[in-house]
């Protein structure tokens, strides 16, 4: 815990509540623009859900978020994150293990990947390029909007009208087919979308993965095609849709941000839980910590999700009734859990050829769209999936820093996992039952897996919320459905990062463009703060042009 800085009684230019990656990105930009910024964080460490924690001797756990792709290159460069220690290494392959003993791998090499799909279907192998082209076309269309404040379509202010026109023009630049594809991407289910390209179930299941991760929807739910785009919008050094590991775990991202922030003169105070936002004369003027300490600031930026910000840090009467209702109705649905495991060695997967790079990437055990959808049905009924979908990684196959030599850290992202079990709070026994489905699933394909387990951290939405403060443990701070995207995120009329209270801003993933360790909400919110202060944004790049 950081001791309180010896600046009692001082008024900060800005107080950022929560040292998640977006809070830190926001704070960095504000500090670089010359503001005197304080970040207050409840935990004793920074990073929110982008952390590396030592939960077992000798091991670092990326215990929440576990892979990196979406962090905008503009932000990494603006904030000099590599100088502050950030390194992102792409991963090498991936695999889906099939119930019949077979597998479908992914390879970075185009020919190898085509032939791998061709083992299952020649037609699908040759359909792959057309599918990729279609996805990339849509990503190229969306990308420029990530670093722009969404316009209010009901507003006639010049800035909103101008921005709407920009959006309209970009849309009109598309061909008619691309426009139709845009509509299709925003409204179709990922499974139906894939049906138009592929015939093999396991191939479709492979592409469905990005359509469901982090959402409380199944692959057959309309809208999941967009979720896929959301996961493809990132890149690793220009390789669109590629994912990688942050060296030293996801905490390396937060640590580099914190370091960059401090280098710009910012102050981080950990172990300081904010109880209330101070509001005087309708303006936010600081925060009150648990225990009553008051810290004053000319403005407050909240990195917390909207429910936590407005329903916990503020009182209902301080806010417009309609706004409160919208916030209450904002859909933050816990749909995933996490099982983090320290392993005594690398597990065997006898079905996989040892020469393949499959363990140096994402591994899955759900080989059909139906099984994936079935896992979702359990969630809808308020249960964890009996046959869960796992996005499993062993980052230590690439990153030597996270475990002692020869030992491994395994991260299992698990869907679906409800925020409450059939309406009641999770019990520890239920949590263990949830973990068992995960361990059993892996053990089905890896006979020595159970014996290698040294330590296991099991996190249902309850544990995730407890540690990170993410309501219901939702990794995106709110569902990525159209009613909560763009100008609707988080609440129509309040999508431009400003809260209904003067001097209070939002910068978390609950704002546009949404979740994933992207940093865009934090950066965009900083742009709005500085616009209000009429201060030029220093070191803030516009979105790189899409050539």
């Amino acid at each position: 815990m950081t001791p309180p800085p010896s600046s009692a009684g001082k008024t900060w230019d800005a107080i950022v509540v929560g040292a998640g990656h977006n809070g830190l990105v926001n704070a960095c930009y504000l500090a670089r623009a010359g503001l005197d910024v304080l970040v207050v964080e409840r935990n004793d460490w920074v990073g929110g859900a982008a952390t590396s924690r030592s939960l077992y001797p000798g091991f670092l756990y990326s215990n929440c978020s576990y892979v990196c792709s979406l962090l905008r290159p503009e932000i990494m460069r603006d904030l000099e994150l590599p100088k502050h220690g950030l390194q992102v290494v792409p991963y090498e392959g991936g695999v889906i293990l099939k119930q019949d003993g077979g597998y479908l791998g992914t390879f970075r090499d185009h020919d190898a990947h085509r032939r791998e799909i061709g083992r299952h279907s020649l037609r699908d192998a040759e359909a792959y390029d057309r599918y990729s082209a279609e996805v990339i076309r849509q990503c190229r269309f969306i990308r420029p909007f990530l670093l722009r404040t969404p316009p209010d379509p009901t507003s006639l202010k010049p800035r909103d009208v101008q921005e709407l026109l920009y959006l309209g023009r970009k849309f009109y630049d598309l061909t008619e087919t691309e426009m139709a594809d845009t509509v299709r991407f925003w409204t179709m289910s990922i499974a139906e979308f894939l049906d138009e390209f592929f015939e093999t179930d396991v191939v479709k299941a492979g592409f469905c993965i990005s359509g469901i991760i982090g959402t409380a929807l199944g692959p057959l739910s309309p809208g999941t095609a967009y979720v896929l785009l959301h996961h493809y919008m990132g890149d690793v050094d220009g390789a669109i849709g590629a994912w990688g590991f942050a060296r030293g775990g996801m905490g390396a991202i937060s640590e580099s941000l914190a370091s960059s922030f401090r280098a710009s003169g910012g102050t981080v105070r950990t172990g300081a839980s904010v109880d209330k936002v101070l509001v005087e004369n309708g303006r936010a003027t600081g925060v009150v910590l648990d225990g009553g300490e008051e810290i004053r600031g000319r403005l407050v930026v909240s990195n917390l999700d909207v429910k936590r910000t407005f329903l916990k840090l503020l009182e209902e009467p301080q806010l417009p009734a309609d706004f409160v209702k919208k916030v209450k109705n904002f859909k933050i649905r816990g749909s995933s859990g996490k099982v983090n495991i320290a392993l005594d060695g690398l597990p065997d997967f006898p079905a996989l050829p040892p020469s393949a790079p499959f363990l140096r990437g994402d591994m899955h055990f759900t080989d059909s769209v139906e099984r994936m959808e079935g896992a979702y049905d359990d969630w809808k009924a308020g249960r964890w999936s009996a046959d869960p979908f796992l996005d499993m990684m062993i980052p230590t196959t690439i990153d030597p820093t996270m475990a002692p030599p020869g030992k491994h850290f395994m991260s299992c992202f698990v869907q679906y996992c409800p925020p409450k079990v059939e309406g009641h709070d999770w019990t520890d026994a239920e949590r263990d039952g949830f973990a068992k489905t995960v361990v059993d699933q892996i053990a089905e394909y890896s006979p020595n897996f159970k014996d290698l387990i040294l330590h296991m951290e099991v996190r249902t939405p309850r544990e995730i919320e407890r540690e990170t403060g993410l309501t219901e443990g939702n990794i995106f701070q709110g569902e990525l459905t159209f009613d909560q995207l763009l100008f609707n995120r988080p609440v129509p009329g309040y999508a431009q990062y400003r809260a209904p209270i003067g001097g209070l801003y939002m910068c978390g993933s609950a704002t546009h463009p949404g979740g994933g360790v992207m940093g865009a909400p934090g950066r965009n919110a900083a742009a709005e703060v500085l616009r209000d202060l009429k201060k030029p944004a220093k070191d803030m790049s516009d979105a790189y042009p899409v050539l």
Partner: protein
Amino acid sequence: MPTPSFDAIVVGGGHNGLAAAALLGKAGRRVLLLEAADAVGGAARTVDLAPGFRVPEIAHLANRLHPEVVRRLDLKRHGLAFAATNLATTSLSVDGRPLTLAGAFGERLEGDIAEAERVAWAALRGKLLRFSGVLAPFLSQVPPRLKNGGIADMMTLGKLGLGIRRLGRDDMREFLRMVLMNIADVLDEEITDDRLRAAVAFDAVLGTSLGPRSPNSLMTLFYRLAGQANGVQAATALPRGGMGAVVAALASAATASGVVIRTGAGVASILVEDDRATGVVLASGEEIRAPLVASAMNPATTLLSLVGARHLDTGLVRRLTHVRSKGTVAKLNLALDGPPPFTGLGAEGLTGRLVTAPSLQAIETAFDAAKYGRYSDEPALEITVPSATDPALAPAGQHVVSINAIYAPFRLKPDSEAGREAFEARILAVLERHAPGIGSRIVAKDFLTPADIERRHRIPGGHWHHGELSIDQMFMLRPVLGLAQYATPLAGLYLCGAGSHPGGGVSGAPALNAVSRILADGKGSSLFAAGGKSRR
């Protein structure tokens, strides 16, 4: 005998085919309408179930017959009358506490329900009606091209934008937020009463491959609410004489405008010469020529089977083969030797529309089964007792009951006759629970799964709408990109059935729009120069 020559051939004598033929006839064209079955009417027919018992074979309610079709064809003069308008919907409950949504889309709630719930419902209902009202004008519009469409298309899009703007700021925000939501989330935000939630969710998902929790299921409710019956938005009505009366009125209007109707004349193929449609070939081998062919059949059937992929580009073929059109509704028609004994429902209640769905979650569970090719163990039902309103449909004191049941997967896994029978039994079991003793009163029945509907009516997938009403298959994308303006790549060939915008239901709207497109195309062409002035 010289074959009379026609200006246009309409393929398919369902309500849209009849409407298109009649509208073209009114515009002075000499029209031949060809229907494969022995009678016109398609899925809107009223048929004999047993001696003295007449039932709506598939469609059993009028909730979207387009007023412009009624007006232009003067259907009232041709015998269209309603036995009941503004039908109430009653959400049945096994414990005998039915909730009745009286008037159009629950204008009034009748039954024991909390006052707060009434207030919340009134607000939500108002909002949903306003929002669907924004979309209503587009039911009778030729969808614009997304690009390079010209000024008229820009105007149409502009009108949509303006319609949304006119809602006012708060409503506009709500509209843009809610438009792609699912009905369950919408109801979760406002309504707690299970009966009410179930009844509204049921309306949203009936006839679609969506569950209440599937995103976009609000849009299908908007589609329903954008319709009207007898001048009242979102209302439901029963024509006198059953749904067949709508068909009869359309047929009468068609005949009056000179349309020649030939039944028992299935079209085997559409003649194509020099990249234009020049007529049809019947199953008998008979060739009939006309410079214009309008098909009310399914778009994929029309283009892939009747025209043939050889005349089309591969991209279009690809899109047509991917149109999602798997029906989810089974139909069970019953003849009873007495009134159906629904618990807690008086004789008055029988004249309305009954819905059995214990809760929204129950509908969702019913839907889950269908995703995997299983029928719902606890199907949700929409029940009408047409003879309660129109006693002529059954012998005195006896009744016919018409039931839509969801969810019925198009293809059961495994596909078997036993599965079909088991589903029928599940429907009867649900019915029995709400109307104990009804089973012993059945004297005749007819059960149609989507597969049966496909067989009987040449509707692919047995889908009510000839293609799922999902946003990627709506408006400018219905049936597929490039065909949404009713014209096809072949000159002289048009689509005018439910597979085109705006979709299914007994509306006549696709025909209305198609004919307006046909007439616009005909302007200036020598072919129709004469037709224009001989408007009758």
